[in-house]
């Protein structure tokens, strides 16, 4: 479980996050949604330590991450897996080397154990025969799956996904969503997804946080969000014609 308590963050004069508090549950897919520029990505980056918070605290199962230094954060960071919007695979490494990278750098496993783990992770994301390909040689959907395999290689407790469906066709998006849901349940991770994708919101929003103008505006689950009665949430959820049609 991850708890965000009264987190504020600004850049210069501009205040991006204002006193955001929320609890992200273990074994659930937690979604952070909101319009562009609402502060979702900044919140996620604060949570993983890429940005420092101005005030407030971020707790990983009671451990105050925001007050730790680089060295103290290391054990928690090794419990975090992250799927980036652009996959962030290392261009100079093959698929196998990408997935093996955290194991090589951070674990004391033997070569055979690392190979077994890589094979398991790649099979888990349905990529059993792409070991020797480079990121430039695979499709966007495959890159996302390799990035998921790399993210779960260290058996993380916490999985962060930054817009996992961006740039993917609807069918591949569903495959990625299903994969994230399955591994969250299978490994009992605390999964946090920053998304714009309405399909994701409706199909896997166990715990949804809606951010508006840097503030926590609304929270609930996928059933509640459709009838929240909150004008800003409705404007966001029912922006597309399909959603408007569904609403009718």
């Amino acid at each position, binding site marked *: 479980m991850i708890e965000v308590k009264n987190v504020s963050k600004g850049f210069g004069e501009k205040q991006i996050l204002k006193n955001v508090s929320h609890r992200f549950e273990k074994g659930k897919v937690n979604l952070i949604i909101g319009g562009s520029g609402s502060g979702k990505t900044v919140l996620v980056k604060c949570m*993983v*330590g*890429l940005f420092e918070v101005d005030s407030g605290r971020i707790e990983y199962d009671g451990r105050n991450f925001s007050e730790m230094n*680089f060295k103290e*954060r*290391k*054990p928690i*960071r*090794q419990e*975090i897996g*992250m799927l*980036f*919007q*652009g996959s*962030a*695979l*290392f*261009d100079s490494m093959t698929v196998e080397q990408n997935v093996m*990278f*955290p194991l*090589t*750098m*951070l674990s004391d496993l033997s070569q055979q154990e690392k190979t077994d783990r890589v094979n398991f992770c790649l099979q888990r994301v349905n990529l059993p025969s792409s070991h020797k390909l480079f990121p430039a040689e695979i499709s966007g959907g495959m890159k996302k799956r390799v990035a998921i395999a790399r993210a779960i290689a*260290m058996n993380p407790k916490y999985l*962060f996904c930054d817009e996992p469906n961006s740039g993917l066709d609807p069918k591949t998006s569903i495959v990625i969503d299903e994969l994230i849901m399955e591994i969250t349940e299978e490994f009992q991770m605390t999964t946090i997804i920053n998304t714009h994708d309405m399909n994701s919101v409706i199909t896997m929003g166990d715990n949804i946080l809606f951010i508006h103008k840097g503030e926590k505006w609304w929270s609930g689950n996928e059933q509640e969000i459709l009838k929240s009665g909150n004008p800003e949430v409705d404007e966001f959820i029912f922006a597309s014609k399909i959603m408007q049609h569904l609403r009718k």
Partner: protein
Amino acid sequence: MKIFFHLGRYWLFMASLFGKPEKFSIYRRRVLEEMESIGVSSLGIVSLISVFMGAVITIQTVYNLVNPLVPLYVVGLVARDTMIIEFSPTIIMLVLAGKVGSSIASEIGTMRVTEQIDALEIMGINSSGYLVFPKMIAAIFIAPFLVLISMFVGIAGGWVAGELSGVIPSTDYIKGIQYQFLPFNVTFAMIKTVVFAYLITSISSYQGFYTDGGALEVGQSSTRAVVYSSVLILIFDYIITQLILI
């Protein structure tokens, strides 16, 4: 005021390189890979430039040597000392600032804008140490060898040019390159080379590491890396020369 911001951030960046490596074996392998990338792959261009520099120095010295009282072997001496003291360490390192500096800045800059550096940091890896430290060590070790090769090839190029054009007999040229040879000049050149190698890798890595934006900014970082490295090489060339030779 911006210069103080960059100076402060540069020193913090340098300090961050010296954290304890996650795995020494990985760093050792990366140093060897970088030596190949920075050193071996630059051997061709270094040799080509050096041979022509030596040839041109020889012919121009002969052309300017109008006093019949000055012995012809002075041409060999001038070619030797010019290559050893100035041309090999400074010009070759300026060339490397263009070749290696832009490559380092664009590689690290691209990793920054495609979130590969963020991925390293989230894993708990010291990204600057992992990416930059091996490049710096590799450059500091391999650049002196490149410069030594450049000295040798440049002086040989002068001899070949003198022989082919017939402006100086081999015996005179060889006598010149042996005449009053000061081994300290090579040491001096090595000191300059090590400082320049550090400047090129640290400045280029800094520019790449703090790239913010997209492809355009990666290009701008790469350009800045080359310009700043070159300017600082020239400034430090003057400082080191004054400190050591005078």
